[in-house]
């Protein structure tokens, strides 16, 4: 019972409710939207965002951020895409892609966890460097002519209209969530983000946890890059641009606090679906999908501001309640004083 209650109270539940309401509202405006294939399409499109957002969630849990995921994804997509185009084996391409992602994660971890540079700026710099490497590597050209089988695999469905990619991602998210909640080490990410100094004092491996978070983030963005390749079918030098904002917005929408220590990867996965749906929903509501980025930005700003406001208000309210509880009514003081004085006299 308690477990079900906890589940209902989880922050990710409100984002799930938001998703459902969003779909229903769009359905009211344009009933043509509410078909299984349209709704599945929203989920299927979200697969890359989900992977990147889940990785991003780890860096947010530890109270940091990684804005290099977009370029990371772009670089891995370009490398994997060109390897496959040139006839390299699938397995090798995937291994190379994941290793690149892990390396980028390590570089970010070195800057943030070892050198203690501010994570936003450090990863922004890494993002610039990686994007530069993509342009140099591809010579500014598109990576095209990917093997047909690789491209076609992205539309293979597993359950109903849901693709194999999306179903596999859901399983991955579920496993990660279980590891985070059920294992001792899983809790370390939140602990480090909640109070890094306190974590050190109770003997938690603070630095290792931070390094791990960045490596996970890098690897998830790399996997996102590989799937991106397969789904889109070609890679431009600008591929992955803006994915960092989508991923951060997805996490925040899913109830993850930018201050660290709060949230779940399930939340970020739900947020990713909302993010992926926006351009789709815009079309159904009769708007241009050009509004997509602006709307994503607005959602991010609104949530962050409301969150900050609520948090501040809660703190002030708690403080006032605590202070008010300390003040006694005048008569009470006199009575208490009398009583104590009398006790004193008797003893």
């Amino acid at each position, binding site marked *: 019972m308690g477990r079900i209650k906890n589940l209902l109270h989880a922050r990710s539940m409100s984002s799930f409710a938001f998703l459902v309401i969003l779909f229903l509202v769009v359905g009211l405006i344009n009933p043509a939207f509410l078909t299984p294939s349209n709704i599945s399409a929203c989920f299927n499109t979200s697969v890359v965002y989900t992977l990147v957002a889940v990785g991003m969630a780890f860096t947010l849990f530890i109270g940091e951020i990684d804005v290099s995921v977009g370029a990371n994804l772009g670089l891995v997509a370009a490398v994997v895409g060109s390897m496959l185009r040139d006839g390299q084996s699938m397995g090798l391409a995937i291994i190379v892609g994941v290793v690149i992602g892990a390396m980028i994660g390590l570089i970010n971890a070195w800057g943030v966890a070892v050198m203690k540079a501010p994570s936003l700026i450090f990863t922004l710099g890494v993002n610039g460097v990686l994007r530069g490497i993509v342009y140099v590597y591809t010579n500014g050209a598109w990576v095209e002519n990917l093997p047909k089988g690789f491209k076609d695999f992205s539309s293979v469905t597993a359950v109903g209209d849901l693709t194999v990619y999306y179903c596999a991602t859901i399983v991955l998210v579920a496993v990660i969530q279980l590891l985070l909640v059920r294992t*001792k080490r899983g*809790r*370390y990410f*939140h*602990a480090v983000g*909640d*109070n890094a*100094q*306190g*974590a*050190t*004092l*109770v*003997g*938690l*491996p603070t630095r290792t946890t931070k390094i791990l978070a960045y490596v996970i983030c890098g690897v998830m963005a790399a996997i996102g890059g590989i799937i991106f390749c397969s789904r889109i079918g070609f890679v431009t030098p600008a591929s992955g641009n803006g994915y960092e904002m989508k991923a951060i917005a997805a996490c925040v929408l899913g109830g993850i*606090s930018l201050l660290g*220590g*709060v949230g779940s990867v399930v939340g970020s996965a739900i947020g990713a679906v909302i993010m992926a749906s926006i351009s789709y929903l815009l079309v159904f509501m009769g708007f241009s999908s050009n509004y997509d980025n602006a709307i994503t930005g607005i959602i991010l700003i609104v949530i962050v501001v409301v969150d900050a406001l609520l948090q501040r208000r809660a703190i002030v309210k*708690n*403080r*006032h309640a*605590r*202070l*008010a509880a*300390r*003040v*006694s009514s*005048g008569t*009470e*003081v006199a009575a*208490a*004083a*009398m009583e*104590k*004085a009398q006790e*004193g*006299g008797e*003893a």
Partner: protein
Amino acid sequence: MEAADSQNGTVGRDEARVSYQVPNTLLSVQNIYKSFGSNEVLKGISLDLCESQVLALIGGNGAGKSTLMKIIMGIYSADSGEITIAGKKVDISNPKAALEHSIYMVPQEPMLFPNMTVRENVVIGFDEGASELESRLKSVMAEIGWSLDLDCKASTLSIAEQGMVEILRGLMRNPKVLILDEPTSALTFDEVQSLLACVEELQKKGIGIIYITHRLSEVFEIGTTVAILRDGIVTTQGNVFEFTRDDLVRGLLPEDASVDGATTGDSACEIDYSQEPVLRVRDFSGYGFSDVSFDIYPGEIVGLAGVVGAGRTEMATTIFGRDKVLGGSVTLNGQDITGRKTRQVISMGLNYVPEDRFNDGLYRIRGVAENTTSALLSSSRMGRFFLNSKEEERVSQSYVDRFRTKVTGLDQEVGGLSGGNQQKTVIGRAFSTSPKVVILDEPTRGIDAAARGDVYAVLQELRDTGVSILLISSDMEEIVELSDRALVMYQGRIVQEFGKDQIVQENLTAAAFGVYQADAKAVTD
């Protein structure tokens, strides 16, 4: 009557001391040296801690207590020297290693995970299974007789409760050595008593405790041995019963200072109460205090006593425009300042020196000069557009000279000053705005005895220039020493006012704990 009680308590503890004294050394540090850059913080510290000992560690700010503890906990590593645990030399390079050697430190500021539950906070970092941890937690809590809601979030706990969770964390690790860093500084009277009782329980179980404190009374109440740190060396060490209060004060003071130098003697100064009061507070209410009325006259130091949480700071910050006024009025020199913005309150002639000089008071990474004059930046005195750096220097130097602030130069970072010198800088800043009334909140908390004397002299000097001071202090001696008149707050109300001749610690303490009665003396005598 109360005195008799505590007398009995002390006797009981003395007996306990004798029967539990086992010469079995748990922890021994030998010849520890540590410097940060050119700053030598520890110069050859040697200390021993035996089973069932409570080693009271006292010393001024910057004496090296925290550095030493951080070395024992593996947060810093010593430049030289060795640490032995139960006779074996050990290498403690990180907190994890310290925990493995059964050493646990309860830090001065609780280090909880605010978004986790109490239970998660306590059991995190253990390798055992959940059910085993749960039963151990239950038994530990039963043993020390605490009840805490394990499922509530740590962010909802009071400071005292957070401290309890920290101690629970320590106990779960079956520590042999427990370090308590000023555990009572944020606690109320009752909480202090339950904490001290808990420490005694732990002592009976054979745990060695290092108890860092600023309150000398606690040394006698709970310590078995005492060590005084000053400027990185242990000046005094031995069994508590060998020392008197004066011995300890002497150990805290620099060798060239006499004990009397720490206090400034009687400061009798006739206040003309027929004048118009400079500050008039009437039926003033806000969050944390209610119906407060008092007057302050020109050139007067009014002490405001009370226990932590009595609403003194809240009242001061509300007058200063930091919080919402719920009723009543405050008049400064005939002008109504009720509910004004802080900026206006300052310009009308009232300033406030906060209790927490780190978070509310100072720009830590800026120099002394910039800090001193930062309150003047909006006035034309510091230049109309470009900063008048000559004036900045002149003003700052005048306060440094006047207050005898120890600085290497006006550009020294304030974060690197000792507590006393930081406090002098903040006070200097408050007075640089030429206020008529200054509210000082715990001006000497965490400051060593010598610097305290300096601060007192500064305050008296300022008073003599006609400034009125409202002195909020939990240190009753301080109020006795400085005040021309004293008010006492209890549960958000002013319950008592004492004239100069009535200001004695006994009266203040009784009123602060809500048990003062003008004729109570007659009853108890």
